[in-house]
């Protein structure tokens, strides 16, 4: 058959999609690279080429460093709370002991995933509110008055409080991913282990963990790159404050671009985010080959 003609037809099918990607993904990416070497504001009609100046500023900007540290903290806590804790939680829920209540807990833990981040953040404004906040009221109610804090207004607690919001929202989702992965483990593996006299903890480490290795990796990359692109939580809850205590890279980019009106430097910050997240995702992409269909 006429391969070339068929390819032409198939290419027509690809055209709308590739066009959209070209205009709204590839073109902006290239533009962003160019912008990162320029200096301009939204109202100025001309852009000035400034060479590597923006990149130099990137390395001397104290807010970048502060933001980066916050992103790293975000990543570390998310990995521990979501990936490790999520895996353990998934294993517990998948245990026969909890079979009857599993679907209830699954449903409940999954609910926060359904809510938009705006709703979750506004909700946590009330949780952390220093006057009538649920958290402080609760601590007082159980007699732990000494633990009450001004959660979002204090440099020591503000960032961790914001990170906690993400954990509240996302741990159920990651747990669900692990449950899906655990359910795919052939049950005869476990049966054989039981015959060998392996206890639950040993089965967890010798069967569950190795069998969900790929999912473990996937969730690591998901949470870490999520942590480096986080925007909504600090934007809504603190605006980066107090001072720059809760500043993260995306928010710094937004403020530089749209508040300070320095689009060139903001694009340079975007490049930093791009490099970090692209490296992370390509690790996943190339180690596990997205194109391989190992399932179904």
């Amino acid at each position, binding site marked *: 058959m006429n391969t070339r003609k068929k390819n032409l037809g198939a290419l027509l099918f690809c055209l709308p999609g590739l066009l959209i990607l070209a205009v709204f993904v590839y073109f902006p990416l290239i533009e962003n690279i160019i912008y990162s070497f320029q200096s301009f504001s*939204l109202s100025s009609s001309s852009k000035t080429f400034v060479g590597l100046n923006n990149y130099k500023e990137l390395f001397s900007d104290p807010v970048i460093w502060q933001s980066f540290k916050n992103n790293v903290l975000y990543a570390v806590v998310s990995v521990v709370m979501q990936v490790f804790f999520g895996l353990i939680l998934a294993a517990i829920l998948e245990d026969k002991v909890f079979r009857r209540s599993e679907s209830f807990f699954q449903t409940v833990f999954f609910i926060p995933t359904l809510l938009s981040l705006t709703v979750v953040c506004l909700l946590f404004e009330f949780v952390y509110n220093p006057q009538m906040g649920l958290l402080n009221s609760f601590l007082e109610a159980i007699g732990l008055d000494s633990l009450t804090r*001004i959660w979002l*207004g*204090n440099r020591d607690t503000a960032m961790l409080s914001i990170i906690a919001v993400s954990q509240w929202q996302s741990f159920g989702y990651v747990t669900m991913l692990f449950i899906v992965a655990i359910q795919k483990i052939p049950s005869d593996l476990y049966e054989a282990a039981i015959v060998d006299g392996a206890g639950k903890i040993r089965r967890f480490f010798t069967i569950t963990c190795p069998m969900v290795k790929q999912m473990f990796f996937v969730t690591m990359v998901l949470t870490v790159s999520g942590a480096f692109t986080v925007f909504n939580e600090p934007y809504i809850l603190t605006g980066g*404050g107090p*001072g720059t205590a809760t500043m993260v890279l995306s928010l710094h980019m937004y403020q530089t671009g749209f508040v*300070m009106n320095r689009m060139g430097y903001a694009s340079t910050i975007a490049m930093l985010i791009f490099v970090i997240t692209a490296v992370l995702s390509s690790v996943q992409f190339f180690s596990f080959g997205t194109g391989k269909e190992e399932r179904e």
Partner: protein
Amino acid sequence: MKKLLVAFMVMLALAPVFAGGSSESSGNADAETQIFFFHRWPNDPKNSMFNDLLAQYMEENPDVNIEMDCILNDQYKERIRMIVSTNDVPDVFSSWSGTFAEEMIASGNVLALNDIYEADPEWSGRLASASVAGFTFDGTIYGIPWSQDGKVFFYNKTIFEELGLEVPTTWTEFIAVLDALKAAGYEIPLAEGLVDQWAVLHYLGTINQRMIDEETLAKDYDPATGEFTDPLYVTALEKWQQLTTYMGDIASAIDHETARNTMFATGESPIMYLQFAEIPMLEQVIPEDFEYGFFNFPAFEEGKGDPNALTGAPEGFMISNKAENIDACVDFLKWLVSPERGYILSTVGGDMSCVDGALDGEGIYESQKEALAMIQNASYLAAWFDNACDPSVYVVYGQGGQAIATGDATPESVMAQVQAAAASLH
């Protein structure tokens, strides 16, 4: 899939409808005279107020259609800066007075209004002259002021009387009052919500104005020449640091509105730095026997700025000289900036109208009338900090101000950052 295809086609066909669907007013869509009106009040109550006013105007003038759009504060600033110099400049748009107005005028697209003022003295004579002055540059008037505002310390009269406290006029007196209140058991004598960066900036703007002499300040606020090397800038931030010690730890975690409603209005904190525009909101939450008065920001003994100035520039409207129907725009604005509509602004919208006679009648609070007198007695109206200087500078100031309040930065370190930010602008 066919259904999907059909649906998709329908969507594509509808796309232009979506595109045009942004108009808020549907009144006289095909009227001959079209006006595009752009302002910065998308929030209620003002948004509904504008919708109602426009509907009323279009009903009275069926040959005119006003298309209105509005976005919030910072976004508005950014967008109007962007489009004022292009052909997309709105026919009628809102603007702050002072530096911001100058920026608008520099685009060359703002209509000079002297003729219009002179042609109708009965109307223009009613506009507060101090407010008109904010839109007048070298004798040319470029705007029609419609609201005036001022930021002053509101105080709880009952508590002041109980403790026998006098209204302070100097910084030393002010600090003495705050100490006395603290000693009397008011743990947080000064209420504020520092989560809102603008609340920090309102303070810092006034402190700078009082502290630094006018010429130096003007030079430093200009992005082209700003240096911020005067040692008094550090002194100014030290005053801020001193003030924050009276705001309690809680201040850094609540917003301005919360502080007003739950601390000042309840008598927990006897003093708060508020805008006159907040009077109606305050009135809604205070108990009936709550009595308050206000005093201007006290003078610094070492300050070089004018202590009788009042922070709070008037706002108004500008007309584009590219507008197709300038006469219609003028007619609309004269209708809007009138005692009747000024009264609606002052009662429904909460801001105080610039029009003489608008602040009479029922529904106008006594305190609004006092406020008016205070605005008229001020030596001049100083611009809000975030209108007066470049965002790269005031963002650093705002963040630094917060950090000083939480004890994470010193006045010196913040000024070093401000200087660096100002230097990067030239």
